[in-house]
């Protein structure tokens, strides 16, 4: 069915037929070489070729290239075609260049000149060819040459919809290549208003706005309300309204998806009308899924569901509409049983995200049975993988035993590709939700039994760490590993765990004659010869530990250590251990031996290396939690840069620096969805870490102040003049009552007389399981103070008394009010405060990218008024405020001058009270 249309190149068709008829590779090469020689002679010949022939030969060269042969000539002829007036000749020229010319070609200057001519041509088809070529090549050179031209076409009043579509995406490509190619703010308003265009060509424009919004969110935030109205018009239209853009009875599905994705760049709109309209759209989309389908074709349901899944992503992004979240979850629940594999897969994937929201987590858990069933019955491994992910995400205290059991059962027949990840997940869940450490030990040992090869070092190290740190698990662990080692074929990882645990705690089961010291030793040693050198080395350490634990079998063990197999082993490590252990056991006294070989001390609670490993395997995972110095940190982040730089710092064991980094990222950009929760029993020792996180409250008045396994403390403050009101919310996270609960603000000597505190509403002395109680405190600032008062919490859980000391987010800047003033007033006051004691100045490295808008927001959050049109240099930030205390009012002026080249700031604060200037300066210097 060779095309018989007018532009067909007969010679090309014949050539292609010839190639297809070649019976062998050799015949094909021969035919190609003949053609190449022919074309070369035509190009070199005396006769000038007409446009048609040139086009035909260039096209043949392209075909030869696409077959996989090198082409080293014809480029110049292709460039010549660009200056032809005929569309078909131009098109082949541009195609050859897009496919074949590398961006560093000598011809690039010539090509760019031709593109310049075509881009300003009155013929839209020529303009489009040029734009497509720019977009296809997309080099830095192209960005530099056309970064300023293309936006003009995009907003031009004369350009056709087709040209605008191409211009939008061409520009998108140039920006991705070279983000500085375009001045964003300048075009923002006109680009945003493309969303109002009555033509429906907007999918392309929306993609562009999406990328611009990611790069420069402030400039493009105006797109939110326009995108909402556009979306609203589409979802409420009938399928006949949009004619050309209705696809299988679904109005503009791709544009809807793009708009829904664009809206995920921004927080939920604050304006009630816009927000209301958006919620309506999302409801309408959910409603449509309940309507009977307008067509039985899969295209109809696919495009409808493409919109639905994107709407659900947006609902999850908003995460504050419980009704929508639950409805989304119910809709996905229906899909879990759908006959289409695609839908089951996508429903599992999407539900995984819903499991992370507090509003829909419970609704997700209702589908546990179905998901477990999917794990057992799905034919496609990727669907089963999603089922595993979802089970992991929905796991909690109440269902962990069942979920872990199902995952273990599945692990036996799971695909090799996902076994290691599953092992990590089972290990994490069983540790996280272990209420009973016998269950934990059983689970990990079973893990080694069914998937020993996939149990990484991190996993078996972890079980040993936990057993060592938990007195109540040790006897059981020793008994269980002993039983497991009796299996005729047991995995080497089991030997490692068994060797280590018996070496530490074998004495706990030695009373039973079935596991007497000698039986234990013989059992372990029966595995010795089948193991790799690293395991043998571990076992030698177990043996020397046995000599200390069980002096009665010392001669037997010494025999083994002194055997030539050990002493003359080719492996240096084994040889050395055998020699040293043997000497240690023969020449030292029992006391020395006991000291050297005493039970291992508890491991410091560090990060779970398993979690770090899982995180590495799955960069997309949303939640990470780890333990550092006994402090549990949960990071919820969609920003991989932050989490990965955090992890790399922590892995280099500079935990302190990692914390600082995380905290900086947190306060720097409130739009980053990072939540740090810190959980600890022993707070006082971790003050340095908590201090970093506490500082967040310098800029905000509400949030989670503290959380551990038992209790969550939320705070909400209001300040007016010298008065403050602090609301504290204590939530009991356990199922049991917390008793003898008391919360008290304590003022240290540095705050005595400077702050008055009165409790307005006492919390009750008991908090029922799952309940939340409130505590309100009124404050008055009498005079200036530094630091913050403490809040002491005491309570009893399962009759164990607990005590926590927190810092209240009551900081001097909370009593500051901004003062607006003009340039004249500001500088005259500035001069009045000119004495050296009234000024503090600091020069420091910028800790964040220098951004005037961000600094302004921060200053306002701090309580000052950020003044505009005051400083002659617009890069400088000036602010003013008054600290209001009962006894005095302290005026403060601030000036922040960036040096962009050096990435430095100079911060100057002047105040009628010198200490205030010094205090504010020191509080702020870390934050810019």
């Amino acid at each position, binding site marked *: *069915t*060779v*095309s018989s*249309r007018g*532009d067909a190149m007969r010679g090309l*068709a014949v050539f*292609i037929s010839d190639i*297809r008829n070649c019976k062998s590779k050799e015949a094909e090469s021969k035919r190609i070489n003949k053609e190449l020689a022919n074309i070369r002679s035509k190009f070199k010949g005396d006769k000038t070729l007409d446009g048609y022939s040139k086009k035909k030969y260039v096209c043949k060269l392209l*075909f030869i290239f*696409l077959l996989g042969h090198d082409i080293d000539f014809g480029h110049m002829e292709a460039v010549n075609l660009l200056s032809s007036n*005929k*569309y*078909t000749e131009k*098109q*082949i020229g541009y*195609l050859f260049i897009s*496919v074949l010319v590398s961006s560093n070609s000598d011809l690039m200057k010539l090509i760019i000149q031709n593109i310049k001519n075509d881009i300003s041509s009155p013929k839209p*088809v020529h303009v489009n060819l040029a734009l*497509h070529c720019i*977009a296809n090549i*997309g080099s830095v050179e192209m960005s530099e040459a056309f970064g300023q031209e293309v936006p003009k076409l995009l907003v031009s009043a004369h350009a056709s919809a*087709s040209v605008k*579509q*191409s211009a939008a*995406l*061409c520009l998108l*490509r140039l920006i*991705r290549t070279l983000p500085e190619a375009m001045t964003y703010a300048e075009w923002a308003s006109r680009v945003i208003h493309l969303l109002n265009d009555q033509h*429906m060509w907007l*999918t*392309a424009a929306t*993609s562009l706005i999406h*990328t611009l919004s*990611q790069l420069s969110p402030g400039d493009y935030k105006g797109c939110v309300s326009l995108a909402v109205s556009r979306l609203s018009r589409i979802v409420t239209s009938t399928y006949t309204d949009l004619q*050309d*853009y209705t*696809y299988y009875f679904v109005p*503009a*599905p*791709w*544009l809807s*998806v793009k708009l829904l*994705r664009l809206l995920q760049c921004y927080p939920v709109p604050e304006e009630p009308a816009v927000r209301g309209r958006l919620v309506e759209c999302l409801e309408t989309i959910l409603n449509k899924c309940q309507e009977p389908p307008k067509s039985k074709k899969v*295209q109809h349901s*696919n*495009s409808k*569901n*493409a919109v639905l*899944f994107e709407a659900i992503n947006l609902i999850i992004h908003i995460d504050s509409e419980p009704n929508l979240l639950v409805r989304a979850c119910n809709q996905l629940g229906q899909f879990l049983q759908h006959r289409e*594999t*695609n839908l089951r*897969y*996508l429903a599992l994937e999407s539900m995984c995200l819903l499991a992370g929201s507090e509003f829909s987590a419970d609704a997700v858990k209702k589908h546990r049975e179905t998901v477990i069933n999917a794990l057992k019955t799905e*034919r*496609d491994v*990727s*669907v089963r993988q999603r089922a595993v992910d979802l089970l992991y995400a929905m796991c909690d205290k109440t269902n962990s035993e069942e979920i872990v059991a199902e995952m273990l059962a599945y692990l036996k027949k799971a695909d090799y590709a996902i076994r290691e990840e599953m092992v990590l997940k089972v290990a994490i869940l069983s540790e996280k939700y272990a209420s009973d450490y016998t269950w934990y030990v059983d689970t990990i040992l079973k893990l080694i039994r069914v998937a020993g090869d996939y149990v990484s070092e991190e996993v078996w190290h972890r079980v040993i760490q936990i057993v060592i740190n938990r007195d109540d698990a040790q006897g059981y662990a020793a008994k269980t590993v002993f039983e497991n080692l009796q299996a005729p074929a047991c995995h080497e990882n089991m030997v490692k765990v068994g060797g280590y645990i018996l070496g530490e705690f074998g004495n706990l089961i030695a009373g039973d004659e079935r596991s007497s010291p000698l039986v234990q030793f013989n059992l372990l040693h029966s595995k010795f010869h089948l193991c790799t050198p690293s395991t043998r080395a571990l076992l030698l350490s177990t043996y020397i530990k046995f000599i200390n634990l069980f002096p009665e079998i010392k001669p037997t063990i010494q025999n083994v250590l002194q055997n030539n197999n050990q002493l003359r082993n080719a492996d240096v490590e084994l040889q050395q251990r055998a020699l040293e252990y043997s000497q240690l056991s023969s020449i030292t006294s029992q006391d020395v031996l006991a000291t050297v070989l005493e039970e291992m001390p508890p491991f410091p609670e560090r990060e779970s290396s398993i979690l770090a490993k899982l995180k590495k395997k799955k960069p*997309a995972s949303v939640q990470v939690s780890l333990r550092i110095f006994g402090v549990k940190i949960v990071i919820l982040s*969609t920003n991989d*840069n932050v989490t990965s730089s955090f992890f790399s710092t922590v892995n280099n064991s500079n935990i302190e620096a990692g914390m600082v980094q995380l905290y900086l990222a947190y306060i720097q950009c409130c739009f980053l969805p990072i939540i740090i929760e810190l959980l600890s029993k022993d707070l006082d020792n971790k003050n340095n870490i908590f201090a970093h996180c506490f500082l967040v409250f310098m800029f905000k008045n509400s949030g989670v102040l503290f959380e551990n396994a038992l209790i969550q403390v939320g705070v909400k403050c209001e300040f007016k003049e010298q008065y403050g009101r602090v609301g504290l919310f204590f939530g009991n996270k356990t199922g049991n009552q917390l008793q003898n609960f008391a919360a008290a603000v304590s003022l240290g000597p540095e705050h005595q007389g400077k702050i008055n505190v009165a409790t307005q509403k006492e919390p009750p002395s008991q908090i029922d399981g799952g309940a939340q109680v409130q505590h309100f405190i009124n404050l008055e600032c009498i005079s200036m103070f530094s630091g913050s008062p403490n809040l002491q919490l005491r309570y009893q859980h399962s009759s164990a008394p607990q005590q926590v000391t927190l810092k209240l987010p009551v900081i001097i800047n909370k009593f500051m009010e901004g003062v607006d003033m003009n340039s004249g007033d500001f500088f005259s006051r500035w001069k009045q405060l000119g004495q050296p004691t009234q000024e503090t100045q600091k020069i420091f490295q910028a800790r964040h990218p220098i951004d005037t808008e961000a600094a302004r927001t921060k200053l306002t959050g701090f309580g000052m008024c950020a003044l505009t049109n005051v400083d002659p240099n617009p890069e400088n930030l000036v602010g003013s405020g008054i600290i209001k205390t009962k006894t005095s009012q302290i005026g403060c002026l601030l000036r922040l001058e960036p040096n962009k080249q050096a990435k430095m700031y100079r911060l100057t604060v002047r105040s009628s009270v010198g200490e205030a200037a010094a205090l504010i300066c020191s509080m702020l210097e870390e934050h810019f």
Partner: protein
Amino acid sequence: SCINMIRFILIQNRAGKTRLAKWYMQFDDDEKQKLIEEVHAVVTVRDAKHTNFVEFRNFKIVYRRYAGLYFCICVDVTDNNLAYLEAIHNFVEVLNEYFHNVCELDLVFNFYKVYTVVDEMFLAGEIRETSQTKVIQQLLMLQNLE
């Protein structure tokens, strides 16, 4: 940051012969050849009971089989699967109308026109035009130009 875009579009037959390769990212020639072979290996082992999506390196392939041809779009993992699955079908319907019941041979003999169809519907790794009517109108207009 998270860029969501099409990384490449491939049309391959069951034997692994490439009928169209459109790249929206810079790859060198060896890498392109590797990608082509890997994609073929990944999609041809799947059957009708499998999903139309498959993880691929750090991306995913959304694909659909039409007779002996596999149409594959490589996108980012967080991209909308069904939207791209239907974008493939939309593209196939346009090819079908433009070539009057398209078959593999049409793509071979008219390879240079297939590029034009692609550029009308996808550009710079994004969906450009989705209306079949508009695309066909434009293609017929171009067809009639000299």
